[in-house]
């Protein structure tokens, strides 16, 4: 009898719904994981899809509009005229100058970044490792404008660099450099050399981190094996270290290259009056009010970066990110 009584009110293996709005919702999530997934993905996707991708398309669409030269009004009809304007010699000059600068900045960043990354990856341990890490992270996250401002202080004619060179009796070197065509100028803060130094300074941490990540994965005994087999340090670097670090360098160069292509503040504050792509975009959309040409200009870095990323992917750079 007692057994039957127990059996008549068995505890079900599956609990009943916990009841109420909250319980019903919770059960629904469990039964239909797709519903929960949709609910989780909807807000971020709507935000990024509408705000961001929508804006990018709005921009792209504008590059196919044209500006009426007499009224200054934007003519909202499909045309390739704006892209024709983009290919004028003056604009091609701007593009070439920017790409050259981006390439030089990338090269210099890689050269300066390598020893730091190599030391941090292979020799720094414990507290030194943390110190190196913060030593790269803090400049990376320091205010971008403050970094540029610091260089304005350094490169100014009356600034610390001139003072230091005067103390070392090396002013003739600075004057000689500034009298050179293209790289020179009135002072370092209004020359391409100044622009170059600041670009390298500001983007350097973006190069160090991926190179260090790539070098961390090189086993130390590989380097030892190379020297055991009779390779000089130079040969070890060329034939062992460099090929293994290359994906990291390419990964870092994605940042240095892309950031240089799009920047308009550094060449505006420290540099000559000759424009870079970013400045051209800024002045076209601002003072000139020619949004279609500005939009067409932004397509240039997008296309260049598209090719760059495609090449980088083929070199395996994304595994090093």
């Amino acid at each position, binding site marked *: 009898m007692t057994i039957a009584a127990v059996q008549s009110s068995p505890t079900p293996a599956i609990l009943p719904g916990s009841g109420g709005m909250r319980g019903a919702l919770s059960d629904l999530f469990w039964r239909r994981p797709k519903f929960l997934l949709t609910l989780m993905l909807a807000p971020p996707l709507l935000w990024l899809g509408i705000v961001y991708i929508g804006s990018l398309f709005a921009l792209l669409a504008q590059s196919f509009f044209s500006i009426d030269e007499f009224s200054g009004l934007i003519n909202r009809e499909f045309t390739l005229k704006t892209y024709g304007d983009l290919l004028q010699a003056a604009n091609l000059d701007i593009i070439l100058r920017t790409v050259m600068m981006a390439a030089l900045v990338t090269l210099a960043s890689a050269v300066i970044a390598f020893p730091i990354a190599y030391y941090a990856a292979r020799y720094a341990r414990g507290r030194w490792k943390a110190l190196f890490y913060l030593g790269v992270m803090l400049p990376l996250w320091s*205010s971008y404008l403050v970094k540029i401002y610091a260089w304005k202080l350094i490169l100014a004619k009356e600034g610390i660099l001139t003072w230091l060179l005067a103390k070392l009796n090396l002013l003739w070197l600075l004057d000689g450099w500034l009298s050179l065509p293209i790289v020179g100028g009135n002072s370092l803060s209004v020359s391409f050399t100044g622009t170059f130094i600041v670009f390298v300074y500001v983007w350097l941490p973006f190069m160090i981190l991926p190179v260090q990540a790539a070098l961390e994965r090189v086993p130390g005994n590989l380097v030892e094996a190379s020297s055991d087999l009779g390779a000089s340090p130079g040969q070890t670097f060329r034939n062992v270290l460099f090929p293994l670090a290359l994906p990291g360098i390419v990964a870092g160069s994605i940042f240095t290259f892309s950031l240089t292509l799009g920047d308009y503040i550094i060449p505006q504050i420290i540099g000559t009056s000759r424009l870079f792509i970013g400045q051209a975009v800024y002045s076209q959309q601002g003072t000139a009010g020619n949004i279609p040409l500005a939009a067409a200009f932004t397509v240039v870095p997008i296309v260049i970066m598209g090719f760059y990323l495609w090449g980088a992917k083929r070199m395996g750079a994304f595994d090093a990110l």
Partner: protein
Amino acid sequence: MRSDRGQRAPLGLKIAAACGLLFLHLPILLIFVYAFTTEEKSFVWPPPGLTTQWFAVTWNRPDVWDALSLSVRVAAISTAIALVLGTLCAAAVSQTRFFGREAISLLVILPIALPGIITGIALRSAFSLADIPFSFWTIVLGHATFCVVVVYNNAVARFRRTSGSMIEASMDLGADGFQTFRHVVLPNIATALLAGGMLAFALSFDEVIVTTFTAGQQQTVPIWMLEELIRPRQRPVTNVVAMVVVLVTLLPILLAYYLTRDGDQIAGSGK
């Protein structure tokens, strides 16, 4: 056991690495000296004298306070939006498999991978096409868009280390979805979210390129600084503000580092 432990680095490498680090840090330290200079008109070095009077002058400048208050409000709201969107996205991507997962990671990273000027001008042209006037909220809209990625990166790294069986165990023990989230998921990801939030705050506080396109007449701290760099009004005040900005961004970065340093992925490595 690694055979390279305790090995000494070649002298040349040591010098090159040290010079590189000095190159990264000396310019920022210079800002601290200039904040105390008595020179008003130029950037002369060495400073002719040292004074603290510019701190008082800066303190009494209403435009500096207005910019600071706008920056803090924008950063706080953008961070809050980014926290919600980034966590949702990270949870969906790391806990489940579905079609288009890779595309979503790409979509989140895109606002920061493309040059800022493209994001900025894209937003500006979208605002003008839709006839949206510039306001506080247009700034927030831009900032939240690129802040999502830092929260997302931190949350994804933490979710990867959190075992899915804990969630199942919680459900088996009778907790409903909300209880599981509140008592199991949230405590696990809390420090990663805090770190991501602080980095998002720092990123928003410092952002200038996108902001120049999405702000109307209002000035955030970076816009104020940019204005001073192009058309200097009172250089010593700029020096003081620059120093304060360095200190203000330093703290969240250090905190974020300590919150996530024992993890596999340390916060902030992908700005």
